[in-house]
């Protein structure tokens, strides 16, 4: 991967994960051999159709839902768009309000903003300093005009995990649908659609070892939403487009593997805690996100007097892949809306680093990250005109 043979630590698993070799292995026979169109009547098609339904059943088993409740999409973003736009358009005229949070992924936020422009009322619920949703505000806002409550299960930047069952109950009391963006959660923590009690749940393969470009939306039996993509009637008439069988098989395989390895997440959480401890030993730093209710791999720390991008670039040079926040924000200069929502001053929001660990990381990785980050922060502070220590 690197030009030279230097140490390389990938600690940006929230942005994307390497495709698991087992997943590539599961996909290869589909590429080479089982490339039929599942809608075709002939043997090539029937074989593909059987493989498709086997994969759907496997995935549904891991997610705790019926195979008929699982719809494959092209990514987490599509799932988020479909769930929210689909619910909003289905309720148009009757229920015109959408409730979400201030710490959603852009796939949800931009969707809500688009609906706002079309005339829907959108309410963005706040969070406390740890990133937990303000349930009182939610209770006050959910009413009989609310079409959907869309809350992220585990935040992609700060890792905070929300009490989704409770949120779903609040939504349901008012007759509203409850959707959760579980893109960061699936693969990292056990996610059971039925137990959570939500009506819809989105996930994306590339966050747990499947490739980028495959996602799914769980839609509880009986829940009616509008289609986002109309056409030939694939996915039981709800998401058209010839099915991406290799990736669907890959996603199912990756889910199985994630389930098998869920026990190992305790080790990952221990690495996370050691990393947090080490980073907080650097002066003028603070942890972002909930101290315990957080994803096992997520570490988000702000360092005063330095800026995030330059830290990421230096860490990269030192062999560590990390990020300033969500990957997509690499194109934006605005400070993270999530960090602002938890009350971080703008200056501090500019100086935050996210490490997201996986099974593949080791204790040595963590110690190296701590040492490297300390070096980088010191180096950048030395050239910072606002660092009082200088």
């Amino acid at each position, binding site marked *: 991967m690197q030009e030279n043979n230097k140490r390389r630590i990938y600690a940006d698993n929230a942005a994307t994960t390497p495709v698991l070799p087992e997943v590539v292995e599961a996909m290869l026979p589909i590429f080479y051999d089982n490339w039929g169109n599942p809608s075709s009547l002939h043997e090539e098609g029937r074989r593909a159709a059987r493989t498709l339904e086997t994969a759907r059943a496997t995935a549904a088993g891991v997610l705790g839902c019926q195979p008929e409740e699982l719809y494959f999409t092209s990514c987490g973003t599509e799932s988020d768009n479909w769930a929210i736009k689909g619910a909003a358009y289905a309720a148009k005229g009757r229920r015109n309000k959408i409730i979400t949070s201030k710490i959603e992924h852009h796939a949800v936020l931009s969707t809500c903003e688009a609906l706002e422009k079309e005339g829907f009322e959108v309410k963005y619920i706040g969070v406390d300093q740890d990133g937990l949703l303000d349930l009182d505000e939610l209770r006050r806002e959910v009413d009989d005009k609310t079409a959907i409550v869309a809350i992220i299960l585990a935040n992609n930047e700060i890792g905070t995990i929300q009490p989704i069952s409770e949120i779903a109950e609040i939504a349901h009391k008012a007759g509203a649908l409850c959707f959760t963006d579980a893109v960061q959660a699936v693969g990292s923590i056990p996610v059971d659609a039925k137990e959570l009690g939500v009506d819809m749940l989105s996930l994306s393969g590339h966050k747990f070892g499947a490739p980028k470009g495959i996602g799914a939306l769980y839609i509880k039996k009986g829940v009616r939403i509008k289609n986002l993509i109309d056409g030939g009637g694939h996915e039981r008439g709800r998401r058209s487009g010839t099915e991406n069988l290799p990736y669907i098989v890959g996603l199912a395989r990756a889910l199985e593997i994630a389930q098998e390895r869920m026990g190992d997440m305790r080790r990952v959480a221990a690495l996370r805690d050691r990393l947090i401890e080490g980073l907080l030993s650097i002066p003028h730093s603070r942890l972002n996100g909930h101290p315990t209710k957080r994803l096992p791999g997520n570490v988000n720390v702000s360092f005063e*007097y330095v800026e995030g991008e*330059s830290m990421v*670039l230096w860490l990269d040079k030192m062999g560590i892949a990390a990020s300033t926040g969500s990957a997509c924000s690499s194109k934006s200069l605005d400070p993270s809306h999530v960090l602002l929502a938890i009350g971080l001053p703008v200056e501090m929001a*500019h100086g935050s680093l996210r490490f997201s660990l996986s099974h593949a990381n080791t204790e040595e990785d963590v110690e190296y990250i701590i040492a490297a980050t300390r070096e980088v922060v010191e180096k950048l502070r030395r050239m910072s*005109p606002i660092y009082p220590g200088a």
Partner: protein
Amino acid sequence: MVYSEKVMDHFMNPRNVGEIPDADGVGTVGNPKCGDIMKMFIKVNDKGIIEDVKFKTFGCGAAIATSSMATELVKGKSIEEALKLTNAAVVEALEGLPPVKIHCSVLAEEAIKAAIADYYKRRGIEMNFTLSEHSCCERECDRKK
């Protein structure tokens, strides 16, 4: 968003980092809220030549690289020549910048000018140029349409 090799070189090995304790002019532009601040120090000899220049910058890779390049471009130049420095020249010398990072080059140009303005002020010379009134954040918003 991909930086050119030149940008990466100036980011990783910034030229002229530091402070000049007895500087003849010091200029600071930017705002920590916007994610970048540049502070420039110039030492001007009696022929009006910028003999030395140093900077300190809080900011992204492009902020550091443009600061570094701007100092290189004005070092050894006369004040008049230094005033002709444009952000485009900084961008060109760096072999390009991603569109969202162009504002850093503007900031670097302004930091040089702010240091010169300070030098003029200290000498009681009237300024024949104006400093931008925009904060970096406003520029940001201007750029987005």
